[in-house]
């Protein structure tokens, strides 16, 4: 689960990590009042959407307006906020339609001496959380990793003990921080690592992490995301979820216990199991089609889930044909066949449906489908299914 920058900064502030003064605004009036309250000459207006790349991104409605802008008066703060609020910000991560800006953050300016990068993730290969820093702040870390990996420094740290002070000092030295900044850096890094573990984060990224002219480390930006599987023990974090930032059909699928990801193609797929669902998408592509989604109904899907899955598939008007691919393991093919028919009748299909069943009680399952008289195209194996659904989608 992702949260907004302003929410992340509140969590940082509560953990004793340096962030700048700021206020969240939902109108131009609030923005000019916030400018006054911050009291400085310079302030920054920042669009609050979950996607990254906001500074380079521009509005769909006004391509001259970027998602982050420096302002020097209360009127300018109001004007920029006015343009951003309600408009759609297009960044490298949002896709072409952009993401609507519903709130902006007005933040005090600061005198920046250096811009650094800091990130924390759980390293899969090391099976451990890892703190990464780089002197190339403000740049995309993927780009730095690809082009100048020698500029990235890493320290794995113990989940329970946290980052040791010497590890933080090593990183500070690698970043060539001035002696006067080391104490600030150690405190910043140690507290952030503790926060990462305490809140079950999956990612914390401070980019840029700035060194101010008086040598202090401050989080100029903050991106945090959380392990969905650990949210049960963080009720306060759950409340920070912003459903407006998520794909509506993905939210709907999640509520039904389905795993769904929307794609750009025109062949819908409904599969049991994540690996088989991914493979089914690949199979469609291999035979010249384009998958419209990833949809995993899970190992033990019931009639309600299959029905809801069909409704979700059919709500996508780009879809020209659907493929159901089920390998019945513990789930019997007869159960799936009956669920399919029930869902088919209650939802009402207007595109061709190809069904491939295999596994437990497959003969009986196929018979149920055949004898129903419902207009379903049955397939004998994976290749047959792919060829039939690609042909049906035209």
């Amino acid at each position: 689960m992702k949260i907004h920058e302003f929410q992340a900064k509140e969590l940082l502030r509560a953990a004793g990590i340096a962030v700048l003064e700021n206020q969240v605004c939902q109108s131009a009036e609030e923005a000019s009042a916030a400018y006054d309250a911050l009291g400085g000459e310079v302030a920054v207006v920042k669009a609050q959407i979950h996607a990254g790349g906001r500074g380079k991104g521009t509005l769909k409605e006004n391509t001259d307006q970027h998602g982050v802008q420096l302002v020097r008066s209360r009127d300018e703060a109001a004007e920029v906020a006015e343009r951003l609020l309600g408009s759609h910000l297009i960044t490298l991560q949002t896709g072409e339609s952009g993401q609507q800006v519903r709130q902006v953050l007005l933040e005090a300016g600061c005198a920046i001496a250096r811009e650094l990068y800091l990130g924390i993730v759980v390293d899969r290969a090391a099976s451990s959380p890892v703190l990464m820093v780089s002197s190339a702040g403000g740049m995309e870390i993927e780009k730095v990793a690809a082009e100048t990996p020698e500029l990235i420094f890493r320290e794995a740290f113990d989940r329970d003990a946290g980052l040791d002070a010497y590890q933080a000092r090593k990183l500070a030295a690698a970043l060539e921080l001035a002696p006067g900044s080391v104490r600030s850096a150690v405190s910043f890094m140690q507290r952030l690592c503790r926060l990462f573990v305490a809140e079950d984060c999956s990612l914390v990224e401070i980019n840029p992490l700035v060194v101010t002219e008086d040598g202090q480390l401050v989080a100029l930006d903050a991106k945090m995301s959380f392990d969905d599987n650990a949210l049960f023990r963080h009720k306060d974090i759950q409340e920070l979820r912003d459903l407006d930032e998520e794909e509506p059909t993905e939210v709907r699928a999640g509520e039904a216990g389905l795993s769904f990801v929307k794609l750009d193609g025109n062949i819908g797929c409904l599969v049991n199991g994540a690996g088989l669902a991914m493979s089914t998408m690949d199979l469609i592509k291999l035979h010249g089609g384009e998958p419209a989604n990833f949809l995993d109904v899970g190992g033990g899907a019931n009639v309600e889930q299959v029905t809801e899955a069909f409704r979700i598939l059919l709500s996508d008007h780009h879809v020209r044909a659907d493929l159901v691919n089920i390998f019945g393991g513990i789930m019997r093919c007869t159960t799936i066949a009956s669920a399919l028919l029930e869902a088919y009748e209650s939802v009402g299909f207007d595109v061709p449906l190809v069904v491939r069943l295999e596994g437990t009680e497959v003969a009986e399952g196929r018979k149920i489908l055949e004898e129903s008289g419902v207009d379903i195209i049955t397939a004998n194996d994976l290749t047959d299914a792919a060829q039939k659904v690609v042909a049906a989608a035209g």
Partner: protein
Amino acid sequence: MSILIGKETRVLCQGITGQAGEFHTRGCLEYGSQVVAGCTPGKGGQEVAGVPVFDTVSEAVAQTGVNATMIFVPAPFTADAILEALDAGIELIVAITEGVPVLDMVRVYEKVSGSDSVLIGPNCPGVITPEECKIGIMPGYIHRKGSVGVISRSGTLTYEAVWQLSNLGLGQSTCVGLGGDPIVGTSFVDLLRMFQQDDATEAILMMGEIGGTAEEEAAAVVAQEIDKPVAAFIAGRTAPPGKRMGHAGAIISGGKGTAEEKVAALEAAGIVVAESPADMGTAIKRAIEQA
């Protein structure tokens, strides 16, 4: 012979009084596995499917001599269940449960690494040595006894592969589902080495997917240490970056973990890679014929 489990394996089920635990205990018993004990705290003394239930894993070990366990307890308690099994000295721990927090697994992984026990999973279908022992949720009847070792990060995709193998007349020595989470107890690398040592295994089929670098590490080990024929399939060539594809671990992040990188690494190691999921069975056949 085979790896991890066989006829003599004595199995415990942690979470046996839950719906899934009871259902799959029955399934394993029907397959012929020796499930001889269950464990649910506070329910010691009961019986489920004719199997005695104990309050603690240590009691189950002391009284029934179990040496393997399958875990069905809910995700918030799975790490604790694994650590309890580890503490009781159980040699093989198979965690079926999906949705275990990653930082729980960081701690569990560290403890398991420093022990003699093997952890499979979490978020996996389990382990089966056909016609001898099944520990997990896979449909037993699709398997045939034979000499192909199967390793996979997925559930139903593994069933699909096993089905293709069995239909081609290629039986399996042991099939292992590693689990779809970012941190799992056992990797491709560990199992490739076990299959290399196993006399009953003549070829190895591995199913990977997007996310992480486990397949690349496996490729390096195949190139250096494995002289048996190996074939592979990688799921997720069409998966978009930054999106989790069902499994918590199936995500391309920061441009890393793509199917292309994995396929390239596997092919460079001389592994036969199936382009279509319909050709997993024929891929291992080709690998065997080439050898």
